[in-house]
C-alpha cells in the first residue's frame, strides 16, 4: 500500500486553472475547489492512488474524516504508482476550520430526484443528495472531481459499498464506459454479467460463484465497455458485495461475521468486501460473453433460456436513471453491449450445483444461443 502518509501535495495545482471564470459553473467549481485547498493546506489529509479500468485515479482527502468510509471498497485497486492521474478527486466533510462550502449558485427548484442539478450537463457536472447532504462536482475538461459530505459520522452503507458512483460515471462516460447495476462473474477468458434489480439474486449468485472458484469483477456496480479493443469488457470497480440478512442467514452464514453494517436497519443489506475473503478471485476485469437476467424461482432446479437482447437491455435500463450524466450515451452503450453478447433469462433454483452448472454453461456458450 502506498501513500499512507498524510501530505498536502500540489496535484490539483498541476492542472491548468480555469481559462476564464466568465462561466458561472466553472467559477463555482473553482470556489468549491478553493475551499478544499484551504482545508488541505492544514496538512492533515491523506492521498490514495488507484488503477481503475486501466487508468490512474487519485483521491486526495483534505482531512481524514472520509478515509475509512470511501477507501475499503476500492482497496483492491490501490497502487503504489500514482502515475499520471486521469481523474483526481478532492474529498472532505463538514466545515473544518470553519471553512464552509460556497453558496450554491442554483435555485432551490433545480434539484432532480436523483440529485442532479438542472443545467449542469456540460463541462461542469453537479449533483447534490439532499437527504445525505452530499455534493459531487466534476470538471470534464480538467478531469477534476470534488466530493463533500455534510456529516461523516453517519455514512450510509450504500456509500461505503459503492463510493463516488456519480463521479466515476461522469469520468468513465467520457471514455465510453458505463456504470451498470450488475454483478460480473467468470474467468479471465470470459464471464457473465448478471443484470437486474435488487433482490433478483445477483449477489447470491456471485457469492456462490466465488465460493466455487470463479472470479468476480463486482457484485453491485461494474463498468462495462461495449466497444473496447478486446470486445465487450467489464471492468471491476468495487470489491463490495451487498447481502440481505435472509441470504446471509440461510446461505452464507459463514460470511456473516465478516460483513459490515449489519444491524443499522432491520432490512438493510450488509457489506462484504470480497478482496478480504477471496483476494485472488476479485478480478480487474474480463471479456463479457453473456448477459443473464436472474430471477428467483421457487423451485429446486435452475434453468437458463436464451432471451432477446431487448430483454437484457430492459434489465439494465434502471441503471441509467439513478446515475447522473448523459443518458442518451448511457442508453447507446448498454444497447450496444446487449447486441454483442449472448443473452439469457436465468431462473435461479435453490440447489447450488444447478446454479453453478448454469453459470459455466453460459460462460462456455453451451446453452443454445438466441
Amino acid at each position, binding site marked *: 500500500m502506498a501513500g499512507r502518509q498524510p501530505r498536502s501535495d500540489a496535484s490539483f495545482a498541476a492542472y491548468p486553472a480555469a481559462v476564464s471564470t466568465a462561466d458561472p459553473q466553472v467559477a463555482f467549481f473553482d470556489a468549491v475547489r478553493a475551499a478544499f485547498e484551504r482545508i488541505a493546506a492544514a496538512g492533515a489529509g491523506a492521498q490514495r492512488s488507484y488503477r481503475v479500468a486501466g487508468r490512474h485515479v487519485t483521491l486526495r482527502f483534505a482531512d481524514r474524516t472520509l478515509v475509512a468510509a470511501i477507501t475499503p471498497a476500492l482497496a483492491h485497486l490501490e497502487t503504489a504508482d500514482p502515475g499520471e492521474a486521469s481523474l483526481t478527486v478532492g474529498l472532505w466533510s463538514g466545515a473544518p476550520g470553519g471553512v464552509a*462550502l460556497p*453558496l450554491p449558485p442554483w435555485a432551490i427548484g433545480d434539484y432532480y430526484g436523483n440529485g442532479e442539478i438542472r443545467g449542469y450537463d456540460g463541462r461542469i457536472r453537479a449533483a447534490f443528495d439532499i437527504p445525505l447532504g452530499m455534493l459531487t462536482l466534476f470538471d470534464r475538461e480538467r478531469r477534476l472531481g470534488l466530493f463533500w459530505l455534510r456529516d461523516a459520522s453517519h455514512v450510509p452503507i450504500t456509500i461505503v459499498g459503492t463510493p463516488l458512483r456519480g463521479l466515476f460515471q461522469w469520468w468513465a462516460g467520457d471514455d465510453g464506459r458505463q456504470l451498470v447495476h450488475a454483478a460480473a462473474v467468470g474467468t479471465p477468458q470470459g464471464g457473465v454479467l448478471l443484470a437486474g434489480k435488487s433482490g433478483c439474486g445477483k449477489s447470491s449468485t456471485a457469492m456462490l460463484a466465488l465460493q466455487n472458484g470463479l472470479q468476480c469483477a463486482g457484485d453491485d456496480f461494474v463498468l462495462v465497455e461495449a466497444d473496447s479493443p478486446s470486445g465487450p469488457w467489464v471492468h471491476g470497480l468495487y470489491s463490495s458485495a451487498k447481502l440481505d440478512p435472509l441470504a446471509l442467514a440461510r446461505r452464507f452464514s459463514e460470511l456473516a461475521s465478516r460483513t459490515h453494517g449489519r444491524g443499522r436497519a432491520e432490512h438493510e443489506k450488509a457489506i462484504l468486501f470480497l478482496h478480504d475473503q477471496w483476494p485472488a478471485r476479485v478480478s480487474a476485469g474480463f471479456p463479457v460473453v453473456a448477459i443473464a437476467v436472474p430471477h428467483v424461482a421457487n423451485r429446486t432446479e435452475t434453468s437458463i433460456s436464451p432471451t432477446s437482447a431487448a430483454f437484457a437491455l430492459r434489465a439494465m435500463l434502471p441503471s441509467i436513471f439513478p446515475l447522473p450524466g448523459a443518458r442518451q450515451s448511457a*442508453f447507446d452503450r448498454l444497447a450496444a453491449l446487449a447486441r454483442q453478447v449472448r443473452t439469457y433469462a436465468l431462473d435461479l433454483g435453490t440447489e447450488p450445483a444447478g446454479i453453478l452448472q448454469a453459470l459455466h454453461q453460459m460462460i462456455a456458450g453451451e446453452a443454445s444461443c438466441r
Partner: protein
Amino acid sequence: MPGDCLRWNVPKVTSELFDDEVVIVNFESGRYHSVRGAGVVIWNLLREGATRAGAVAACRARYTGGDQVDTEVLAFLDRLVDEHLAVANPSCPAALVASPASGLGQVPFEPPVLTTFSDMQDLLLLDPIHDVDDDGWPTTAK
C-alpha cells in the same frame, strides 16, 4: 387535422429497434417502454414522420386483419401520444407508399403492444422545496 402527422419525440425520447421489439426511453418522464407486434413497424414509420392515415395504410398493406388493423393502429398511436413518445410533426414527409414489407405478401396482424415501466420515474422528477441550512444548502424537511 392538427397533430395528424406524428414523429418520435426526440431528443426527449430515444429508442433501440431490435428484431421483434423496440425499447423506448422517455428521459423526461423517467418511464421506459417495450413495443411489440405491429408496434415495431409503426414506430419505425414515425422515425421521419407519418400521418395516422399513412400508418394505417401501411399496416393494411402489410397485414391481413381488415378493420381490426385500423382500430388497433389508431389506438396505439394515441397511446404513443399520451405517453409523450410521439408528437405532432408540422411538416410531414410525402405520403407513405403502402406496400407489403416483402414479396411474400401480407402476414397475419399482430396487434401493437406497448408495455410501460415506471419504476424509475420518481428519480427524474424535480424535488419539492426543501429546508435550507445555515450555509444555504438544502436539507430534508425537519
